[in-house]
């Protein structure tokens, strides 16, 4: 890394992107084959996933190494920050699609099926007797009778967990800026633990839903929106928690300085994003 400080660092050729493409090819192609009913696809898909993990480790490893050997000036740092921010924005839009589906179904489709507005005949002739109520699994009662998840139980605990994890990561951030390494270390560790507890509780909640409430993916539009929204959120929490775990190990190695700690902040932003999505979920999916 012979680059001087004030020069924008342009990396030389890298094989990681192509490896990543191969990984996604196998992972998604294999999964598609699996969905078409050939079990071998599942295996290919898992190999692809493994390769993807290797790629991510390798790619980030390279970046970390470059960062540690001071290749990046402040302008590069800024590029990374902006990149992360706009990436999170695109994630917000991804969730917006599913929230949009929830609002549309709940505010428009269910009332229409119940005969509201110009859809009187829809109700009368196609779905006689269907009443527009939420939660709903539709006029055909797809998936059968079900109960919804009570907002007060596990979800409330999970809300508390995520909220406090947001606090702990902020404490860690301040500690990092003040050079308090012990607090930093603890802050991240607690956040990671809280994150994984969230995932654990979420899994428990799903099992409860499936085994006791008869609330499933196939439970009409309610089950669809409920599981897809919370499921994608859970996936993001998992990614965020893994991200933070990596950060914790880097903290242990003393990677971050009060001035330079982009990766730490990226993880923290991501965590806050996941947190905000959860608050929306808790409000719109569990509460209302």
């Amino acid at each position, binding site marked *: 890394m012979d680059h001087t400080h004030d020069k924008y660092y342009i990396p030389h050729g890298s094989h990681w992107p192509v490896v990543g493409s191969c990984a996604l090819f196998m992972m998604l192609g294999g999964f598609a084959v699996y969905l078409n009913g050939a079990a071998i696809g599942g295996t290919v898909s898992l190999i692809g996933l493994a390769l993807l993990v290797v790629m991510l480790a390798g790619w980030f490893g390279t970046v970390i190494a470059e960062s540690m050997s001071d290749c990046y000036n402040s302008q590069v740092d800024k590029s990374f920050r902006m990149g992360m921010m706009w990436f999170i924005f695109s994630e917000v839009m991804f969730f917006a699609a599913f929230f949009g589906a929830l609002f549309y179904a709940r505010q428009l489709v269910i009332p*229409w099926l119940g005969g509201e507005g110009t*859809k009187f*005949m*829809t109700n009368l*002739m*196609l*779905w006689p007797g269907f009443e527009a109520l939420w939660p709903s699994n539709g006029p055909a009662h797809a998936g059968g009778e079900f109960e919804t998840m009570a907002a007060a139980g596990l979800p409330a605990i999970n809300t508390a967990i995520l909220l406090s994890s947001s606090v702990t990561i902020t404490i860690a951030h301040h500690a990092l800026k003040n050079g308090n390494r012990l607090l930093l270390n603890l802050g991240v560790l607690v956040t990671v633990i809280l994150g994984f507890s969230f995932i654990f509780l979420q899994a428990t909640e799903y099992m409860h839903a499936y085994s006791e409430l008869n609330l499933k993916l196939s439970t009409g539009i309610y089950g669809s929106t409920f599981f897809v929204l919370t499921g994608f959120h859970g996936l993001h929490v998992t990614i965020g928690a893994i991200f933070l775990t990596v950060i914790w190990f880097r903290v242990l190695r003393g990677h971050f300085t009060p001035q330079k700690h982009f990766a730490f902040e990226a993880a923290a932003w991501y965590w806050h994003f996941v947190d905000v999505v959860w608050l929306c979920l808790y409000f719109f999916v569990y509460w209302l």
Partner: protein
Amino acid sequence: MTNSSGFRLVGKITTLLGLMIIAPSAFADMVLNLRRGVTDISQTVYELHMLILWVCVVIAIVVFGVMIVSIVLHRRSRGAEAASFSHSTKAELIWTIIPVIILVWMAVPAAKTLVVMEDLRDSEMTIKITGYQWRWHYSYLGTEVDFFSTLARSSNIARQLRSGVDPFSVENYLLDVDKPLVVPVDTKIRLLITSSDVIHSWWMPSFAVKKDAIPGFINEVWFKANETGTFRGQCAELCGRGHGFMPIVVDVLSQQDYAAWIDAKDRGETVAMVDSTADTTAEAPAAARELSGEELYNISCGACHQANGQGLPPAFPGLVDSAVVDGPVAEHIDIVMNGRVGTAMVGFSTQLSDAELAAIISYERNAWGLNSGDTVQASDIAAAR
């Protein structure tokens, strides 16, 4: 850059525009424009269309005019020196505000028309229309009358891949059905439109009606025809392999004729259409001879189950490996005649004759290497009716 190539540009552009203007008159007998249609709404829509069209033409003449003048005059080859101005708030305001005014002026009649179109009150009769892959089903609410309307036999034969039948020899090629929708003139008719499978769209240009048929929902539209006659349209939403082959024909009858028609229909009689070209079977060249079971299969069933019997899974099952085709004859006859409720497999008992159904079923049971040796007779079908 030479002098002459610049002139060539202008020359070619004008020839091109000229050609576009002249070309239509060369095809005077062809339909070039929206039709006026036979309802008040369709006339209004036609006028709206002409209004916007002319607005656009006028703006185009002004905009392209200025551009062409500039291209002709302000070219270096004519010694034009470039000016250096780069903005003018006044000009920019003008060409922001004028379009806004034009747009508002166009939006008002458009909005009014839309409001009228959506006003379903006081309709005098109601027909429920259901789209199927690939035929329409009409049901006259308040009567016992309901029937399927399918692409006319003559067109269906001619439209097969490499059928050898010249489409020009078929009357109303692809725009004809076996049983048209019959409605009275001067009557506000409400249509309830829905679908049994995928999205279709019921489009009758002469009434300016186009509404999507959406499974699980009913959309409502209305029309009131001012003239009697036969009007033709098509399914307008991509609905799979047969999308191009589910035409719509509406016979508008005088009120007396309609009353007689619906009366007879209601009593379960088959009525010859008063004003319809529906039964064109006799005119179709290929139908002059008897069709074999294989040909009939390809025409009526091949769209879904495919000529090779493999079907198009997952939507349309293959028949080669079907337990029904390989199983008891009675069950086979039953599904072909009566269909399976809730699937794209509708019953064919009303569309095909006993002999035809028998031929198809016999064919299926012996084709694609099945060789069951069964033959079904027309009498078997008659017995099952």
